[in-house]
């Protein structure tokens, strides 16, 4: 399978402050990738490194087979929409389209016009007068009409109301079904992306905590409840992600690392939804004294 993004030990420091530490990633083409993590986790840093706006301190990153922003043709293959979907307030919607056509070799004028009509934008309207939702639609249209192979959005829906949020994602998904494009979207809220992403990268404290295909993640994580004694003797093949003890009863979130079936003593093992899974990893990332202390898989083995 071809990779759209490959990172190896990717690290970025801002002075002494770590922006991203030792990230290893391999993202296949054709996915809608949800990049999720709390504010300050390193999402914008990773997106900046991917688009070539930021240079790594150490490690390597390859996007569509070459160094980000290595050449004009590489730039043409990647679309990047920065936080809050910025547009030129003094220019009209039509001006934005003309600008897009002049600046991009592969500009798809027909697609741009059709989309602008579909979302009901007026070509003569100044972009500064658009609502947040309309601005996001304009930025999305321009980024898509550039016909990139990789489309990157930094927190595209954070500032939108729920309806505009859904409309934005709906139009984005329609683009995905029309064009062959890989999409990376970041959000500090998983709920924003849960319906649309089929690949997840979870960042916390400048490190990748979890990455993989959503279906694989859903089918390998379980919540099990048992006596302290039972859960202390988990067979090999299970990594404990989080553990909560109440009285004699323990609740664990575990990841199955091989094909070992779940032991009978854990007949009550339950699947988790994506949000519960993400919470378990975030809890562990912020509280190293939790699960990690008595049953510790090295973070590296979980990637």
């Amino acid at each position, binding site marked *: 399978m071809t990779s759209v993004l490959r990172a190896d030990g990717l690290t970025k420091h801002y002075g002494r402050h770590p922006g991203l530490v030792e990230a290893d990633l391999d993202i296949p083409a054709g996915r809608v990738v949800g990049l999720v993590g709390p504010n300050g986790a390193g999402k914008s840093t990773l997106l900046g490194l991917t688009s070539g706006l930021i240079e790594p301190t150490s490690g390597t990153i390859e996007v569509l087979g070459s160094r980000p922003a290595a050449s004009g043709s590489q730039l043409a293959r990647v679309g990047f929409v920065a936080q809050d979907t910025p547009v030129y307030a003094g220019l009209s919607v039509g001006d934005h389209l003309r600008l897009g056509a002049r600046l991009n070799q592969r500009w798809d004028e027909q697609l741009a016009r059709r989309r602008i009509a579909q979302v009901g934008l007026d070509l003569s309207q100044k972009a500064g007068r658009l609502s947040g939702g309309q601005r996001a639609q304009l930025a999305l249209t321009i980024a898509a009409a550039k016909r990139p192979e990789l489309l990157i959005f930094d927190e595209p829906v954070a500032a939108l109301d729920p309806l505009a949020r859904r409309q934005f994602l709906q139009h984005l998904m329609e683009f995905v079904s029309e064009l062959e494009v890989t999409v990376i979207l970041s959000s500090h809220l998983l709920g924003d992306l849960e319906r649309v992403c089929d690949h997840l990268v979870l960042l916390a404290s400048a490190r990748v905590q979890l990455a993989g295909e959503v279906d694989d993640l859903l089918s390998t994580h379980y919540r099990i409840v048992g006596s302290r004694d039972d859960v202390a003797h988990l067979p090999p093949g299970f990594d404990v992600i989080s553990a909560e003890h109440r009285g004699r009863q323990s609740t664990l979130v575990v990841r199955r690392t091989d094909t070992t079936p779940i032991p009978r003593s854990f007949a009550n093992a339950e*699947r988790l939804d994506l949000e519960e899974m993400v919470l378990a990893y975030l809890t562990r990332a912020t509280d190293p004294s939790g699960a990690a202390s008595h049953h510790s898989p090295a973070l590296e083995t979980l990637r």
Partner: protein
Amino acid sequence: MIDFQLDVRSGVAPYVQLVQQVRHALRLGMLSVGDQLPTVKEVVASLAINPNTVLKAYRELEHEGLVTARQGVGTFVTRSLVDDSLPAHEPLRQELLQWFAKAYKAGLDAENIEALFRTTFRTALGAKR
């Protein structure tokens, strides 16, 4: 035609949910041989989900021999899952409706009714096994 729903809180992979809903509709006779499934674009537009999810679900259904994709036309049902029990469905459904009405009259709210129904359903199923 089938109207897909998605429950992201269920912990069931979204593509599996779509597959289950088609199977369900085939079992209950709500979809029959020759019926067309909504196009990927239609599902994407109505649920705002990833087209890959819909494609994956349709591939799985095709693999099970329940539907077939005709290039450029659409995806069509090729096999029904209706069995001999179908004639019994409607009277049973009516009884169930009456039961729900009764429960409602007795003062149970939707959550109460669901809890009672689910636990009884599980017990009954367990007893049968």
